[in-house]
C-alpha cells in the first residue's frame, strides 16, 4: 500500500491549503461585519444602543435596531463554510487513506492524533452549524486547525509502523477517540469563552458610554450571556466525554501496566484538566464567579488540553510514549 502512504499526506496538505483559504474568507467576514456595523452606526447616529441581556437575537439586541428590515447576509461567511466543508472532505480522505495504509484505526501516534483531533473539531463545528449559527467562530476554528495540522505535518510526521504492544487494544479505539471528541467540544467552548470575554468588555464599555467599544464585528454577535451559556453547553458535553476518557484510560492502564492509576505524566495532566473543568462548572454556579472568571477557567482548561497534547506528548518522559517521535 505504498501509494496510499504517498497520497495521504498530499490530501492532507490540500486540506490545509483549503482550510487556510476558508480562514481568509472568515476573516473577511469579520472585517465586513465591522464595516457594516460602522456604517449602520453613522446612519443611526445617536440612536440608543441597548445591550441585550438575553441575546436571543444578536443583531437586534446588539444594535437595538429592532426595526432593521434587511436581514444580514454574511456572504463571506458562507464562502468560508463551503470551503471548510470542502477542506474537511479532503481531510477525511487523508485520514481514511492513512488508516487503510496502516490497516488499523488512524490514531496511534502524535501525527495521527493531530489529524483525527482536528477532523473531529471541524466535524463538531459543522454539525453544530446546522442548528446554531456559530460562523463567527470560523476564523478561530480554521485558524486552529491550520496551525495544528501544519505543525503535525511538518514536525510530527512519521511513517506507518506496526503498533507497539501496549497499543494493541480495543481501548486504543475507544479511549483515544473519545478523548479527541472531548477535545473538539472543549475547543469550541474555548472559542466561545474568548468571544464572551470580548463581548463582556464591549458591553461594559457601552454601558460606560465609552467612545470606542472594541472590534465592530462584536455588534453582530450574541450577547455575552448567551455566548456563556453556549460555551457552558459545549463544556459539559466535553466534560462528560473527558470523564469517560479518564475511566476508559484507567481500565486500559490496568490491563497494560498492571495498575489503573499511577500518576504517570499523561495521567496527571488528564486529571488536572478534569479538575479544572470541574472548577469551571462550579464557577458558573458560584456567585461572583459566573461571567468573566468562569470564562477564564474555560480558557485555562483548553490551554491545559493543548499543553497536554503537544508539550507533554513531545517533551515529558512517561509511559505514554506514543508520539512515535524519537
Amino acid at each position, binding site marked *: 500500500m505504498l501509494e496510499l502512504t504517498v497520497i495521504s499526506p498530499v490530501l492532507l496538505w490540500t486540506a490545509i491549503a483549503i482550510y487556510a483559504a476558508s480562514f481568509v474568507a472568515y476573516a473577511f467576514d469579520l472585517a465586513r461585519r465591522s464595516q457594516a456595523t460602522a456604517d449602520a452606526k453613522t446612519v443611526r447616529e445617536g440612536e440608543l444602543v441597548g445591550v441585550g441581556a438575553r441575546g*436571543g437575537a444578536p443583531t437586534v439586541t446588539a444594535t437595538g435596531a429592532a426595526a432593521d428590515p434587511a436581514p444580514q447576509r454574511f456572504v463571506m461567511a458562507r464562502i468560508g463554510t463551503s470551503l471548510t466543508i470542502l477542506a474537511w472532505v479532503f481531510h477525511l480522505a487523508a485520514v481514511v487513506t492513512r488508516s487503510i495504509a496502516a490497516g488499523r484505526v488512524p490514531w496511534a501516534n502524535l501525527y495521527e492524533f493531530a489529524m483525527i483531533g482536528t477532523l473531529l473539531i471541524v466535524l463538531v463545528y459543522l454539525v453544530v452549524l446546522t442548528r*446554531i449559527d456559530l460562523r463567527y467562530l470560523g476564523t478561530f476554528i480554521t485558524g486552529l486547525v491550520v496551525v495544528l495540522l501544519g505543525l503535525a505535518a511538518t514536525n510530527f510526521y512519521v511513517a506507518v509502523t506496526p503498533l*507497539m504492544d501496549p497499543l494493541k487494544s480495543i481501548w486504543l479505539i475507544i479511549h483515544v477517540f473519545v478523548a479527541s471528541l472531548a477535545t473538539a467540544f472543549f475547543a469550541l467552548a474555548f472559542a466561545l469563552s474568548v468571544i464572551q470575554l470580548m463581548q463582556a468588555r464591549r458591553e461594559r464599555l457601552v454601558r460606560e458610554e465609552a467612545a470606542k467599544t472594541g472590534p465592530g464585528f462584536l455588534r453582530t454577535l450574541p450577547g455575552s450571556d448567551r455566548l456563556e451559556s453556549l460555551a457552558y453547553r459545549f463544556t459539559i458535553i466535553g466534560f*462528560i466525554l473527558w470523564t469517560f476518557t479518564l*475511566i476508559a484510560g484507567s481500565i486500559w492502564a490496568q490491563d497494560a501496566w498492571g495498575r489503573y492509576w499511577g500518576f*504517570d505524566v499523561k495521567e496527571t495532566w488528564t486529571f488536572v484538566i478534569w*479538575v479544572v473543568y470541574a472548577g469551571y462548572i462550579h464557577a458558573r454556579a458560584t456567585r461572583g464567579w459566573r461571567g468573566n472568571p468562569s470564562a477564564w477557567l474555560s480558557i485555562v482548561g483548553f490551554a491545559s488540553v493543548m499543553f497536554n497534547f503537544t508539550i507533554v506528548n513531545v517533551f515529558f518522559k512517561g509511559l505514554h510514549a506514543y508520539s512515535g517521535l524519537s
Partner: protein
Amino acid sequence: MSSSRSDLNDQKDPVDTDPLRPSDHIDGDDTIVQPKLGFVGWLRWGWRQLTSMRTALILLLVLAIAAIPGSIFPQRMADPNGVTQWERNNPDIFPVLDSLKMFDVYLSPWFSAIYLLLFTSLVGCVIPRIKHHLKALQARPPRTPARLKRLADFRAVERTSTDAAADAAASIDIAQKQLKALGYRVERYDAGRTFSVSAERGYWRETGNLLFHIALVGVLITVGVGGGFAYTGQRVLVEGETFANTLLDYDSMNRGRFVGDGALTPYSMRLDSFDVTYQPFGEPGSGQAGDFSANVTLKENGDTRTGSVKVNHPLEVGGDRIYLLGNGYAPTITVRNADGKVVFKNSVPFLPQDTSMTSLGVVKVTDGMPEQLGLLGFFYPTTGVLDTGAFFSAYGDLTNPTLTLDVYSGDLGINEGTPRSVYVLDTTGMTKLTGRTTDVESIKLTPGKTADLPNGLGTVTFEDESPAGATDLTHSVKRFASLQIHHDASSVWVLVFALLALGGLMLALFVPRRRVWVKATHSGDGVALEYAGLARGEDPTLGAAVDDLVAGHARLLDAAGVTAAREAEDESEPPASEPPASDTPKVD
C-alpha cells in the same frame, strides 16, 4: 430563559422543592449570616465557609495546581530510578525539593491536606442536600402562580366553547393526563372560574448530582481502603524456571497494611518459553519488538494448565493477575576455578539498555575462588563493531550474539548483610583484572565458547542453549520475562463508583428540571388557556418543550371534542413571544 434567576417570589410553596444549595450558589438565598458571638457560632460560621461553593471551587483549583509538580519531577512511586538520576544531576537542590516532597507529591501531607479538605467540604455540602432532596421527592408541585404572564416562557390560547365552565375543567383534566404521561408530577389547583394544573419534573437532576458527588467519595474510600488489602510483587523468570507464590520467592514485594504473611494463594508457575518478534530489516519500524508472550505452565490445587501472559492480556490465577512488564536475555554462564571445578553456573538476566537489546549484567562468584570474583558483562544479540572497535547491538533478535566480560576480584560486599541489587556490581574494594585501564583485554565470547580468566584463575564459558540440531543461533541464549503479580480486589469497586459518578453526572447535566403550569379560565363563549414553563437550573430546551405542550394539548382537545380552536385572526400570537428570529440563532 435558561436560568432560574428569574424566579417568581410571589408564591409561597407549602414545601420548597428547589434543590438546597450552599448560600453562595448562584441561585442561593444570599443571606449573609453574621456569626453569632460565641464559640459555637464561630464553629458554625466556619463550617458554612468550608462547605460553601467558593471554598469547593478554590480547593478544586488548588488541587489542580498542586498536582502539576508531580508531572515535572520524577515520582518515587512511579519512577524511582528517575529520582536517583535527578538527584545525581542536581545534588544541590535535591534535598530542598525532597523535603518539600516534590518527589512524593501524591503522598505528601500538603497534597493530602488539599483533597481531604475538599472531600470534607463535599460531605458537609452533600449531607444536608440529601436530607432536603428526600423531602422534596415527596412534596407536591407548588401552587400555580396568579400571573403566569410574568414568566419568560408563556403561551396563551383562546378556544371557543358551548359549555365553557365544563370545558375549562375538562381541558385541565386533559392537560393533567398529558403532563403525567410526559413524566411530570402533577397537582390540581382549582379555584372559582379558573382551573389549573401545576406540574414539576426533573428530580433526577438533583439525584444525579448527589449520586455524582457521593460516588466520588466512594472512589476515594475504595482506593484508600483497597490499597491496604492489595499487594504487588515482581519476579524475573528465566525460561525453564519455576516460581512459587510465596513471599520468599518474589524479587520484590509491596503489600498493603492488612496483607498478612499467609495471604498469598498457593500456586506455582513455570516459564516454558518467551516469544517475541522483531520487525525485519528494511521495513518501517525495523527492529521494533512486539507480540511478546510469556508462555507458562501453572499448578494450582493439583491442577496443571498452560497459559500465556501478554501485554494488555494479564493472566488470572487464584485472584491474582499476572502482568508482563519486561523481557530480555539471560546468557548461561559457567565459571570454573583453576582445578576445573564449577564454582558458578547460572542463566543470568541481563538488563536491556536500548531498543536493540544491548544488555548489561553481573555475575557474582562468592565461593570456590581464592578471592570473590565479580564479572561485569555486556551482551549484544546482533553484534556490530564501530570504527573505534567498540561493540554495539544492531538488532534486538539473536543473529550473532556476543558476550563481553570484565573481571574484578576482591570483596563483593555481600557479607555485611546490606542488601545488594543482583544487577549492580559495587567495585569499591575490588581490583579490575581485565578491560580498559588494565593491560589485559576484556573477555569476548560467542555461544559455546570458553575463555581463560586472568591470572590463571580458571575459565568462563558462555553456554550455547540451542536445541539439538539447531542450524542458527536464534535460540542460543535463554530469555527472561519480568512479571508483576498484582492482587487488588477493590479495583472492581473503584470502577463501579467511577461508573456511578459518570451516570450521575449525565443525569445532573442533561436532565432538565422544570415546572410547567396550564391554566384555564372560562368566560362566556370561550376558554382562555395559559401555559407557562419555569426552568430550575440550566435548561436550554424549555421554550421548545412549552411549545410542544401547547401543540399536544390542542391536538388532544380537538380529539376529545372539548372546545374548538378559534379562527386565527386575533391575538393567537403569544403575548410574550420570542423576538423575531434573525439570521443568527437558528435554535436557541
